[in-house]
């Protein structure tokens, strides 16, 4: 399970900023994200209209979520599948373990799934003697390195090629230690070979779901590698993990969202594999699982309905927000300290682990709004982060010094005459201090500012209001 380090966001961020390997990876990644999405969006003139449609589809679904979930579950059962409703992570873990035990599973292959990270499925299976094998290339190396993902669609974007080579040499000890990786392709080929045998041996395959379709009872996964399809096609049991907000009413609804998803995520017009799974192997079929289980997980989502944070349930996990976030771009994903990094994580994590633990996340934003401007379903992420700050303020979680300063400043700001007097004095003093300097290298109480930049001195001659009043008095 991803160990929660969100309370140490500041320390995490400082470490990330000082990590040359990470900074190299981030510098490589950032411009690619921007350029690819921008190109894909430019290629579809209706993209902006589709964003409104995507938002409306999700809003409609959420307003009727109970109904659509029931229709969905009934259709899964018609196709021979089983739906397991789970309120908590504990329940979901227990259900998954029980299915694996019933199947006599020794190894379980897994497609990339963020909800699986949220639930901590791997640790739970391992603790009970079942070996989970991550098959997404990025997740695979993270499993070898015992690291959590740093990004929701590119979990290992924080690694460099040399990290891959080193991990493969350390883990694939049956191979010639003197082998040479001349190209990235060689790394890929080694992983493909290693994982192919795991796919074939697995008793159970676990995937996530990008969408659930009420109309047909289908779970949908979107991948580029094909690992998700091998995971759900080869073993005799397929388990799809999905949180309750993944459901949409019809294929047409899913289609509109799919037009947004890949473009927003990787800048592709469409992902390589978009696969709809509906129930168990049919009579006469030559492949496909004999059992199909959907683990339908709430784990805190239903509490968001009817609150300010309901809009967050529209999220389709494309990662555009983090790809365009300058804070994420500076620190990478691990600094956020839990499963979901970037702006979507800054809103979602406090709802799932508590704002007392994840309070830094919604504060670590300049509210630049770039995330909202690229969100395919128009989630007002800065507004929702501000809502968290309001909850923190109400619950006195905001640090005492900030509260005191705010209170002091507000007292004056509400009293224009006093404000005028005190600012005139303050600026006068600062002006005297800074006379002839133009900028301060260091100032008491401004250490945060002056650590990495000078503080420009105020323009000499007093405040605008004082100068303006003087000029008026002099009849100018």
């Amino acid at each position, binding site marked *: 399970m991803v160990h929660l380090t969100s309370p140490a966001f500041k320390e995490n961020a400082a470490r990330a900023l000082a990590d040359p390997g990470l900074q190299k990876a981030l510098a490589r990644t950032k411009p690619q994200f921007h350029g690819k999405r921008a190109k894909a969006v430019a290629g579809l003139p209706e993209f902006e209209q589709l964003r409104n449609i995507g938002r409306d589809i999700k809003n409609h679904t959420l307003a009727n979520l109970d109904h659509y979930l029931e229709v969905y579950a009934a259709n899964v059962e018609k196709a021979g599948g089983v739906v397991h409703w789970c309120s908590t992570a504990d329940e979901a873990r227990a259900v998954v373990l029980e299915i694996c035990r019933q199947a006599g599973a020794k190894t379980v292959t897994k497609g990339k799934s963020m909800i699986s990270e949220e639930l901590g499925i791997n640790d739970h299976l391992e603790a009970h003697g079942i070996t989970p094998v991550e098959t997404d290339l990025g997740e695979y190396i993270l499993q070898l390195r015992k690291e959590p993902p740093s990004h929701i669609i590119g979990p290992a974007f924080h690694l460099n090629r040399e990290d891959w080579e080193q991990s493969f040499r350390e883990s694939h000890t049956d191979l010639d230690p003197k082998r040479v990786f001349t190209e990235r392709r060689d790394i890929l080929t080694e992983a493909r070979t290693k994982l192919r045998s795991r796919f074939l041996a697995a008793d159970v395959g676990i995937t996530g779901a990008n969408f659930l379709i009420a109309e047909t009872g289908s779970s949908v996964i979107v991948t580029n590698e094909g690992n998700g399809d091998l995971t759900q096609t080869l073993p005799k049991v397929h388990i799809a993990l999905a949180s309750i907000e993944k459901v949409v009413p019809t294929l047409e609804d899913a289609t509109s969202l799919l037009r947004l998803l890949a473009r927003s995520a990787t800048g592709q017009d469409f992902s390589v594999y978009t696969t709809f799974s509906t129930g168990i192997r049919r009579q006469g079929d030559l492949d496909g699982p004999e059992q199909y289980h959907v683990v339908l997980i709430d784990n805190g989502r239903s509490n968001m309905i009817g609150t300010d944070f309901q809009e967050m349930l529209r999220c389709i996990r494309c990662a555009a927000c983090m790809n365009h976030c300058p*804070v994420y771009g500076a620190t990478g994903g691990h600094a956020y300290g839990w499963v979901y990094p970037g702006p979507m994580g800054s809103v979602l994590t406090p709802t799932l682990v508590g704002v007392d633990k994840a309070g830094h996340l919604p504060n*670590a934003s300049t*509210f630049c709004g770039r995330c909202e401007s690229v969100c395919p379903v128009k989630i007002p992420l800065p507004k929702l982060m501000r809502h968290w700050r309001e909850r923190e303020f109400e619950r006195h979680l905001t640090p005492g010094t900030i509260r005191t300063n*705010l209170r002091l400043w507000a007292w004056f700001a509400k009293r224009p005459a006093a404000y005028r007097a005190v600012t005139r004095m303050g600026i006068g003093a600062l002006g005297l201090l800074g006379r002839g300097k133009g900028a301060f290298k260091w100032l008491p109480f401004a250490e*945060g500012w002056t650590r*990495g930049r000078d503080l420009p001195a105020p323009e000499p001659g*007093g405040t*605008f209001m004082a100068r303006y009043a003087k000029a008026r008095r002099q009849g100018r």
Partner: protein
Amino acid sequence: MLQTRPRVALFVTCLVDLYRPTVGFAAIKLLEAAGCQVEVPEAQTCCGQPAYNSGDRTTARDLARNVIDTFLPYDYTVVPSGSCGGQISHHYPGLFDDSDPHYRGRAEALAAKTHELVSFLTDVMGMQEVAARYDGVVAYHDSCSGLRELGIREQPRKLLGSVQGLTLKELVDRDVCCGFGGTFCVKYPDISVRMVSDKAKDVVETGADTLLAGDMGCLLNMAGRLKREGAPVKVRHVAEVLADMTQDAAPIGEPK
């Protein structure tokens, strides 16, 4: 242009008041040149953004009431900042829920007639050009609230294009934040400094000798970093150049 001279109230903003009074005078000069009758209401202090963004809605609401009461009588309120302008025109109405319909209505009325300076000059007053000269190569930074909340992008470039002697260069990643973010810059200084360092690098790479923007917060941040790096880039508010008042004050962070 409008037929009669509209009564325009200048909302000076804290940072212009305290740090850069010349911007206030430049704003008055530009507004008058555009045919406005400008007044500076005495009772103004702060738009309340620091409280609003710190989660203190009560204080934000109290300060908003003061601004609303002070500025509502005028035809327009003009602000030489995208972020303070956006606070009034985009966030004030949301501060008053259904329990205070009176102020909600007043907030909406004020929001509808509040504008950022440069976009007001072009979009409302129809200004096409300015009478100014600036001999220099200029990079213009779009502040996030101006760009994304208020849609200010082409307006400053259009007016800058009419300044004699001025060459405009574009930053790469011009829609990326400089890292100021109000209290963010002192709450998370490490991240903020990284962001502004990246921005400073982009500025230097344009080869521009001058950096302009429409928001004092971004300008202080970028000037502070450029100064720390010893980069020979002059930093000014866009209004100073448009009003041809660059003689009135040394660039931000430079000794007089």
